[in-house]
């Protein structure tokens, strides 16, 4: 018998949007306040896992056509890549820079290279976390004996 999950599906449709938005807030909040790439990434991953729970793997794969292993690898490359900017200017590895800039809509905004680093962290965390969940939920091994 198919379980009746109308309520779960309806709630998920709204909740996922809220979780995604909150993740982005957490991610951007991270520079001066609690939050950041790791937490933002984890909550994004949580939203994706919620989607797989209430729909199924195939639907999620189709709607988010990303290879999460590659996303994780790309994230680490991005994070390490920003770290190597320091040595280019003869500063220690992972040195970050920041400053202020006047943007048309947002007004005086702070820019940091740490944001790029954090984006990498977020990708790595999303990729790893979702990949672990998806791997566990698959039955078949793709390994040929």
């Amino acid at each position, binding site marked *: 018998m198919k379980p009746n999950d109308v309520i779960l599906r309806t709630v998920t449709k709204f909740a996922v949007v809220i979780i995604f938005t909150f993740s982005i807030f957490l991610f951007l909040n991270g520079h001066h306040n609690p939050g950041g790439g790791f937490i933002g990434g984890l909550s994004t991953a949580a939203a994706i896992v919620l989607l797989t729970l209430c729909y199924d793997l195939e639907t999620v794969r189709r709607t988010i056509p990303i290879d999460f292993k*590659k996303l994780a*690898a790309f994230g680490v490359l991005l994070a*390490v890549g920003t*770290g190597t900017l*320091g*040595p280019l200017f003869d*500063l*220690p*590895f992972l040195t970050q820079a920041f400053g202020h800039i006047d943007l048309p809509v947002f007004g005086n905004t702070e820019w940091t290279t740490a944001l790029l680093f954090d984006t990498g962290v977020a990708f790595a965390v999303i990729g790893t976390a979702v990949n672990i969940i998806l791997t566990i939920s698959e039955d078949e091994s793709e390994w*040929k004996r």
Partner: protein
Amino acid sequence: MMNNMLILPVVLPLVAGMFLVLFPKKILLQRAVSLLALILTGIFSVILLKDVKEQGIQTLQLGGWEAPFGISLVGDLFSILLVVTTSIVAICVLLYAFSSVGYEKETHYFYPLYLFLITGVLGSFLTGDLFNLYVFFEVFLIASYALIVLGGTRAQLRESLKYILINVVSSAFFLLGVAYLYSVTGTLNLAHLSVRVAEAGQDGLLTTISILFLIVFGLKAGLFLFFWLPGSYSVPPTAIAAIFAALLTKVGVYTAFRMFTLIFYHQPQITHQLIGILAAVTIILGIMGAVGFWNLKKILTYNVIISIGFIFIGLVSFTESGLSGSIYYLLHDIIIKAIIFLIGGVMIHLTGTSDLRSMSGLIRTHPSLGWMLFLAIFSMTGIPPLSGFIGKYFITKGIFEADSFLLGTIGLLSSLFILYSMMKIFMNAFWGETILGEDEEKGTTKGLILPIALLTAVSLALGIGAEVIYDYVAEAAQSLLDPEIYIRAVLK
């Protein structure tokens, strides 16, 4: 001295590995990039070695956060020597893996995992921060979990479960130790820890914490707590087993040396005494295993255990010659363990069995393999001028200077048993009637001999070029005995 090059041995394999995750099916690219990354790592580590020798300890405060607040990378001679040796062995084992690992494993992230393992090992050698050390331990452990189970045979699954459990427990202890140490001293920078522990005096509490660390590193290095080691080192494919045997236990040895020379050196009558007892028991139990078994893989893994016990004797002596002997023997052992595991792997590959009693007469069909094993055996036993001799000589000299005659005698006698157990392999497998003709063999040695020959050449160079290398080793030992040098370099 700030030196950005210190990050390269960590970042190069990491970036290469992550890049390769993006292209899992392109085997030629995988091979080329991983080889290139390791060769570059090797070149930069040799340049680093030159820098450290000429200008003293090199440091890098990551992100510009000054020690003890940020994370420091520290390269002193001890760690850089190990980095150089590790890169050499990593290159040779990688070459061996090219022609032995097989398509399935190669397309299932073998090369990225291998590179992450090397990242973790090199990072553990270079970091100057205790928590960062824990992180690098996890990096190479997680890579090793995946590598040990890659292929998924029944024996691999059984042993990997044990291996993961034991390492999760020891990592938990490690974290506990870090937490205790932080709550007592309020810092995790190794140099700063050394200062704080020296100021406060190493009381009972700190000594207890140090013993907790000894348990952790003992588990990783196979010092007395080695019950997990023979099983888990004999199941994975040869290339992986060789890199495990050559490197993973040695990281445990390195960190134990670092902790007990830099931080916990105030109560040697307790800690170093305990290490001495453990080392003696390790050697004796290792000998029993090595002499008793007739399984090639088992004999080789028990030989790993014997040498771990032997290296720790130098730490127990706590004299300059003892420590320099240990460092030299550590370098020698990384190379020689890779050699004998690779040779053992070829022998099993050829005969299709690891039971010595069903091998015979390989010398007729594979003379080069036999003679390289013969050289390796003599080197392990400590016949001059091969590389094992100098290490053994200085460790023994050191321990007799420290008046531990019993430990010295056990160490010396162990050589005889190593000789016996290894000659058992040589005589059974290489002497006697040739039972397998060239065409009856289960596999070919194509591409497998070159990496072994390269390693043998390095091992010979380590023995014959002892005069040059000993300069470096002696200086490394001196700086281990004088924590002031390390502290000044990091904290200024």
